[in-house]
């Protein structure tokens, strides 16, 4: 059942990414990076095993429609998941909004570096806008998970 939901969610996220998100980015406006945000959310608020499954399913979905060598997106997403998990486990506090958004920011910077190296170019303005919108969207996700679903109370009873 979990696979069904993950595949469905991956199709929705991939459709949004290949459509309006990339269209806005190409037009120079930038848009929240849904791929990185979902990876971050799965690692930060969920289970690492599901996060890896999500990274592989979403990565392979993007690989099927992309013209890049098959496995490129899956490899990047698994790498991002691994690094985010390491950062979360070793250096950062789970219940801190600032630290969770800092990790999201680091993920986005790493994503931009990997993509810029692969594409041999960078869209500076769109990347900055994308970082800004993603952090904003990440704050909303954090609020929904941590406050609405009362995860904060589980996290050692700490408040924002």
């Amino acid at each position, binding site marked *: 059942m979990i696979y069904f939901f993950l595949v469905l969610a991956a199709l*929705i996220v991939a459709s949004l*990414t290949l*459509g309006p998100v990339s269209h806005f980015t190409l037009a120079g406006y930038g848009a929240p990076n849904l791929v990185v945000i979902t990876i971050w959310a799965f690692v930060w608020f969920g289970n690492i095993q599901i996060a890896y499954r999500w990274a592989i399913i979403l990565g392979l979905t993007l690989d*099927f429609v992309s013209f890049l060598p098959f496995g490129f997106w899956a490899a990047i997403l698994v790498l991002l998941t691994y690094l985010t998990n390491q950062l979360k486990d070793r250096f950062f506090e789970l219940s801190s909004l600032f630290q969770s958004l800092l990790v999201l920011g680091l993920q986005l910077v790493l994503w931009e570096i990997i993509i810029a190296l692969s594409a041999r170019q960078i869209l500076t303005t769109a990347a900055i806008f994308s970082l800004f919108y993603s952090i904003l969207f990440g704050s909303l996700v954090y609020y929904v998970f941590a406050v609405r679903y009362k995860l904060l109370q589980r996290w050692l009873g700490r408040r924002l």
Partner: protein
Amino acid sequence: MRRFRRRPTTLIIIVLLIIVAQFALFKPVRDVARNAIAAPVIAFDTSVRKVRTFFSLIGSITELSKENADLKQQNNELRAQLSNLSALKNENELLKKDLGFSKTRSDLTLLPATILNYSPAGTFQALTLNRGTKDGVALEQAVVSNGYLIGKIKKVSESTSEVWLLSNRNLLTPVLLTEGKTSGILKGGIRGLVVDTIPVDAAVKVGDLVVTSSMEGLYPAGIAVGTIEEVISTKEEIFVSARIASPINIRNIQTVFVIK
């Protein structure tokens, strides 16, 4: 990963899939996937565009209400009608331009194509078309919209192809300036579309039309690329650069033509 250690079959299947996918026989599968995902991608893209149009209409309604509250209702209706008409007019004009281009350049064979999706990361500056080798699309063919060059086919499979936009830093386009008297190489990048290494004595003026050059046989000659927006020069250099403005906004394009 621990789960994969417990169930290595999943990992083996994924690795095998990735290995098999590197061979040409897997290309049709990716073609089918690209075409299959096109429907939700286009639906999401159109919906987001409609939402944007709706909000810009709301913005203009608020502005009007400040000017005259009595005329607000009437104005709203008129504006709604006008926006519909202007959308139709724009669409009509775009089609007329495309038609005009195909008539004026009867020497070129144009193949209409629809944009299926955009590259997962905008940085790649690429988009996918619903035409491939079975439609006669081949590598290095030029892609135009409303008579202006927008990019080039850089990857092609049986029923889909990938276009690199002019703004892609890795795409070099030979162009002619000053009514064909000066040639240069157009390149995309952070500064926008720029033609470098123009001799300082070339009479390059803002507003001049820039067209493709048939140099090296890469493009058909004389396809409009844009106009010169700014001439960039420094005292010490013997060459100047020109920034080119293209009237084509990637955000409004849904269909393009591939020059066969």
